[in-house]
């Protein structure tokens, strides 16, 4: 049986983890490779790096981080943040990323989704959608890390992304992100039920029940979380044991 995936996400800036894992056995709390390895060894189903490096000249540092991570982590690695072109995607894949997550550039230009998925295969093209609730039953997409509103309806756009070859949708609720109140279940449910590709729920996890809700109520194929794992509140193993007890299929 296919298992639901637990994906820890690390925010990386200039080659350093911004919100690090608060583990005692870490030599260097800011090293993304070391933290990815801890997640790799503790049963994470995939690992996600979100690059929030602002200056373009420092972006090559990320490639080096990806390269080193691929040498020691043998689970899928997704990298996102600032991906704008086929060339950006190619560089990341060659460095050792398995999937690339595209956000603003994909919203602006659907051709980037179709072109990249036909060159590299749908399996490695993740379209990241940041959405905010506008009114009852309606969510709009925001770009540039959530700063800029667009006219795109989140659910309609996710269908367009699927038609253009996206292999997966990473759905972040901007209303919930950082609140620890749980995923936006309504939105997750709506999107996952009208797509044939997997949806990764993101934004708002504060406890383990939220992971379960994202999967069971929201219909997500995978759940992404950052802070609950980073700050040592829960380990990946605890999360999986909890889900298993709740009859959610996980890999233990």
């Amino acid at each position, binding site marked *: *049986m*296919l*298992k*639901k*995936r637990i994906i820890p996400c690390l925010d990386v800036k200039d080659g350093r983890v911004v919100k690090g894992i608060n583990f005692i056995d870490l030599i260097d709390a800011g090293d993304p490779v070391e933290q990815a390895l801890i997640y*790799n060894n503790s049963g994470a*189903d995939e690992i996600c790096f979100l690059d929030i490096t602002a200056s373009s000249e420092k972006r090559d540092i990320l490639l080096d981080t990806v*390269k080193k991570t*691929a*040498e020691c982590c*043998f*689970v*899928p690695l997704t990298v996102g943040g600032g991906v704008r072109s086929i060339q950006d995607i190619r560089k990341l*894949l*060659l*460095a*050792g*990323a*398995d999937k690339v997550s595209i956000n603003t550039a994909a919203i602006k230009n659907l051709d980037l989704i179709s072109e990249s998925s*036909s*060159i*590299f*295969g*749908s*399996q*490695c093209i993740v379209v990241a959608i940041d959405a905010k609730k506008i009114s009852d039953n309606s969510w709009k997409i925001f770009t540039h890390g959530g700063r800029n509103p667009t006219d795109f309806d989140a659910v309609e756009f996710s269908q367009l992304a699927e038609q253009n070859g996206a*292999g*997966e949708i990473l759905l972040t609720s901007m209303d919930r992100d950082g609140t620890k109140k749980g995923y936006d279940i309504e939105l997750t449910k709506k999107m996952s*039920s009208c*797509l*044939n*590709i*997997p949806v990764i729920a993101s934004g708002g996890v504060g406890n383990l029940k939220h992971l379960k809700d994202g999967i069971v109520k929201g219909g997500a*194929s*995978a759940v992404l979380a950052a802070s609950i794992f980073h700050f040592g509140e829960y380990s990946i193993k605890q999360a999986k044991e909890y889900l298993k007890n709740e009859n959610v299929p996980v*890999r233990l």
Partner: protein
Amino acid sequence: MKIAIIDYGSGNLKSVTKAIEYASKNVLQKSDVKILNSAKEIDTFDKVVLPGQGSYKQCYKSLISVDGILDELINFVIEKEKPILGICVGMQLFSTFGDEDGGSKGFNWIEGNVRKINIKNNDFKLPHMGWNNINICKKSKLLFGVENNSHFYFVHSFAFDVSNKQFISATTNYSIEFVASVEKNNIYGTQFHPEKSQINGIKILENFVKI
């Protein structure tokens, strides 16, 4: 041990290379793992790995666009009977025909067609993406020491419908039951990605290094 990884422009070769190097170290063999993008040197290698990402048709097209490579592979695998490991679409190419993307013929080393996974309802998304467990159905060199029901990482929408069931070494279930790995003499293949399947995947690569 010299292992060639065939580069025909298909996806992430780095993780395959690193995982095989890592597995070699575990079995105390120093492997010389090299990414090859021409047909020339294949003969000088002991083993070949054929990765594959994207569509069957595209992969077949890209592969045969490498001058002389198919003849060299046939010589390596069929004449010399040296071990080959196909991963994902790399394994699917061992088949007779693949339906994906309008259809294309394959190598026809293991008879059968590659077809889209038949999804019964919307609860089953495609691609079949993530960790699934395998049912081992025959004694296999590649799966030696791997426990039944172990988890491996899959990403695919098409599956290899192998005609002669004795070449199937494991299956998996997702809406339907389909082939997870094949083994026919010196020809080995996995639908899943051993290089992304943590300890279980490394075990398989160790076995391949040892064969």
